[in-house]
């Protein structure tokens, strides 16, 4: 024991020292290689299709496509507007309700909302608000006089409003979660009390004193939402306009077109999308700077906030309630559809129920679900090693994380998937490593790792370092201190981070499909393939299954520590 200690410490330290670098490489390499694999064909280089000269032809034919400017405009508008609305609603809600009992109830609804897959949420919303949808059925024909659905353009409207609605309903919970995490790092409550004691209204007080402190911490999540909104495919196919579609959807259409020469144009479109996302991010960043400057003047002027602003908390709450109700009711509708036989307009409930869909899909789904869990479990376990390795290196070796590496961590979330995954697939195939279980795990890691790191880093850094000092004073080495003190103390955040990672892995569609070569099936790849059929009954079955897995993970993260530490009051959730 005495002999082995310094040796194992030395090896462990050397390994530990490399972990952050290794992690960064793990994220940077696939994204960088994938972007190269996208840009090269856009500039004419794709030998397999006879492209070997540098040329701008692909961009020329892209711009010549009559829908180009409109598609680009749609991508920009839906991305920026949905992000602004989601952020606005999140901040408004937190500003006006933080610290109340109702606010705690809202936060409890977050994990089920986050567990709903994007595509399923979109289908659910479409079923609710379409002219033949649930809401119209509820009021027909007795109030509306409609015996047949009216010919109203609601879903897939040319302005992309329905798509924006769907994005806001799914992204607001995510930003709210990120804001809650950031709030734990600042003393928001006492700042608010201080400001209110000087006569400030609740919302104004929060905006002037708390927001400037937490915004830097939610900035990257906001950027991720912006990049996602601009490049989303699955939700846009269901809710977005089609004449033309947003640029990301159009890119996928070209990638999957039988005319192989369109592959160059697809790469050009993916590149344009990539640059558009970068431009939008820069524009957003500049707007932040301007807003911050205006904010300083606003603070200096000392306005306490009009009564009207403070009274608007009811509006914030009802907007948030509506958007989450859309998701929940949509899911309820889909769940009902999965047991439905015939359900015609304007019946509020199905005319007949049957179990056929579940009987047919159930057995197949069970096998797929097992593979999904295996894949997600492995990704999470590996990611955990890297994340804890990085954080432990930070604690033990006092390596401070450079702000730039946080950006790298977010890179896979900021670069549109359609901008680098097709390129990455070509590379994976050329090295002969595609289609295997482990490559797909590696592809999932690129997305799982950032989310888990972001989720675990704050609680890890917030842990009182004096526990460590006490342990060391009692003779515990750094390893014992890690395994016997830090990890058990952090069990709850570790499990929460794992549940987040698990949900992220379960939700991956393009990485699984492209890197897995169609040979690795998960609930999500199955669900999207089946959803292409638009059959609400089957979508209902898969959406529920897809939702249940992450939900169980979140539930376990809550229950396990409570059971383990049931005799330890100091470990209870405060």
């Amino acid at each position, binding site marked *: 024991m005495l002999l082995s200690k310094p040796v194992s410490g030395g090896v462990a330290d050397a390994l530990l020292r490399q972990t952050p670098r290794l992690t960064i490489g793990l994220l940077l390499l696939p994204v960088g290689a994938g972007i190269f694999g996208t840009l090269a064909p856009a500039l004419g280089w794709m030998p397999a299709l006879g492209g070997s000269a540098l040329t701008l032809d692909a961009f020329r034919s892209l711009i010549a496509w009559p829908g180009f400017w409109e598609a680009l405009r749609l991508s920009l508008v839906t991305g920026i507007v949905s992000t602004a609305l989601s952020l606005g609603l999140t901040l408004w809600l937190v500003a006006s309700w933080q610290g109340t009992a109702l606010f705690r109830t809202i936060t409890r609804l977050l994990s089920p909302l986050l567990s709903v897959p994007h595509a399923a949420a979109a289908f659910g919303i479409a079923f609710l608000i379409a002219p033949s949808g649930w809401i119209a059925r509820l009021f027909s024909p007795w109030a509306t006089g409609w015996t047949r659905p009216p*010919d109203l353009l609601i879903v897939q409207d040319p302005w992309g409003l329905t798509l924006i609605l769907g994005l806001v309903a799914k992204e607001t919970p995510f930003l709210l979660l990120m804001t809650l995490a950031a709030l734990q790092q600042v003393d928001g409550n006492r700042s608010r009390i201080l400001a209110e004691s000087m006569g400030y209204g609740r919302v104004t007080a929060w905006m002037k004193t708390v927001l400037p402190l937490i915004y830097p911490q939610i900035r990257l999540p906001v950027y991720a939402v912006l990049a996602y909104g601009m490049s989303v495919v699955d939700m846009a196919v269901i809710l977005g306009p089609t004449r033309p579609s947003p640029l990301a959807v159009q890119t996928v259409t070209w990638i999957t077109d039988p005319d*192989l020469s369109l592959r160059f144009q697809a790469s050009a479109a993916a590149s344009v999308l990539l640059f558009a996302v970068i431009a939008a991010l820069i524009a957003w960043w500049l707007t932040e700077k301007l807003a911050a400057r205006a904010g300083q003047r606003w603070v200096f002027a000392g306005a306490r906030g009009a009564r009207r602003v403070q009274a608007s908390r009811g509006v914030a709450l009802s907007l948030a309630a509506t958007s989450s109700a859309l998701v929940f009711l949509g899911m309820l509708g889909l769940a009902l559809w999965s047991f439905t036989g015939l359900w015609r307009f304007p019946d509020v409930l199905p005319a007949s129920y049957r179990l056929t869909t579940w009987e047919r899909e159930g057995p197949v789904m069970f096998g797929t679900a097992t593979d999904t869990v295996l894949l997600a479990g492995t990704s999470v376990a590996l990611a955990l090693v890297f994340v804890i390795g990085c954080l432990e290196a930070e604690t033990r070796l006092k390596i401070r994380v450079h702000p730039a590496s946080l950006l790298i961590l977010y890179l896979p979330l900021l670069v549109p998937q359609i901008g680098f995954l097709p390129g990455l697939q070509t*590379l994976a195939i050329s090295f002969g490593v595609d289609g295997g279980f482990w490559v797909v795990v590696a592809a999932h890691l690129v997305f799982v790792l950032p989310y888990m790191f972001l989720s675990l880093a704050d609680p890890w850094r917030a842990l009182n370092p004096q526990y460590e000092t006490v342990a060391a004073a009692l003779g515990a080495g750094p390893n014992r201190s890690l395994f016997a003190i830090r990890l058990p103390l952090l069990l709850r955040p570790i499990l929460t981070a794992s549940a987040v990672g698990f949900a992220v892995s379960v939700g991956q569609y393009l990485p699984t499909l492209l890197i897995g070569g169609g*040979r690795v099936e998960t609930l999500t790849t199955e669900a999207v393939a089946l959803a*292409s059929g*638009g059959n609400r009954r089957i979508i209902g079955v898969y959406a529920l299954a897809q939702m249940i897995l992450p939900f169980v993970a979140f539930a376990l993260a809550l229950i396990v520590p409570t059971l383990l530490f049931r005799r330890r009051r100091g470990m209870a959730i405060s």
Partner: protein
Amino acid sequence: MKRLISALALSASLALPALAEPDPKDWDAVVAEARGQTVFWNAWGGDPRINDFIASVGDEIEERYGITLEHVKVSDTATAVTRVVSEKAAGRDEGGAVDLIWINGENFVSMKRNDLLFGPFAEDLPNWQYVDTEGKPAVLIDFTEPTDGLESPWAMAQLVFEYDAEMLPNPPRSAQELLEYAVENPGRVAFPQPPNYLGGTFLKQILYGVLDDPSVLQVPAETVDYDAVTAPLWAYLDELTPNLWRSGRAYPQNEPRLAQLLADGETDLSFALNPARASAAIADGELPESVRTYVFDEGTIGNASFVAIPYNASHKAAALVLANHLLDPATQARAQDPNVLGFQTVLNMEALSADQRAAFDALDLGIATLAPADRGVSLNEPHASWMVRIEEEWAARYGVAE
């Protein structure tokens, strides 16, 4: 970057030397080689009935030939084509991920022209003897492109229209009547947005309806006066579009979503390339029992579904056995059963034994399915070049908001 390129080149040059390809003429050897292989069949996964059928085929070839079938459910056939292209791009000329693709039309033409297919093999399959090459010429010519044995047919398709007989006693029976109906009942007719496959088929159907001499469609569009030939089509669509569902400002994306519109009562008409789809949907409770099908007086577009083997497939022997099994009279009879799939057989009844034929005779058509004799004329698919140009022009005229 230089290193990356040389790494790419290196991996291409490291590709294994070509193994002997299976030869379908030596069938026993193919069957022997196939035993124990796993065949990855990339087929559209959007219809549970088709998925069930493929699963049952998998059980059969497992039992009979010791082959494991993995159904790779793709949301679009082109995904599988893309896969093969990417593999070729990466120099993977052996050990590809796709063994068999459900394919036809443009996807086939594209793969054929880019030398991405294995074969010819189709006419050497033992069950080829039953295929109706005389009565169903579409099994040899896919969108006017000769198949050259590079793909093997497994089902016939014909466009049929679906309507609710209780709501609409007299459905429009020609392209002209359809236009009149739409003008009188705005918002009650829709078609999937081209380049969707079914949407493109609809445009071709209308083209047949507005041409005096449709035979021009069998030659490449470049060889005739394209603008003059298609002028009546655009005149027709200019009148139809403002009267479409959502005034033509939005379109359903694909066949299932078109069908959902009929089921939701948003439209009065739907159509499908599977004549038995409506009966199956009624049986599953997705459509009311009053739904019926019919064809246009001028006839409707018919074509065939094929399977093809990529040039770099890993398990060609098993793919061959599977392609052959799909032509087995028993398999074909089951596919034609409206309670299973309702796909029309590619086989010639005359070539079958009495026992084999009995399986077909025993089939119940299903409540909404037309008997083969009532399906009128099956119109040939136009040359693929027509579709390419019409889709492009449609996109420019109607596919982008003005």
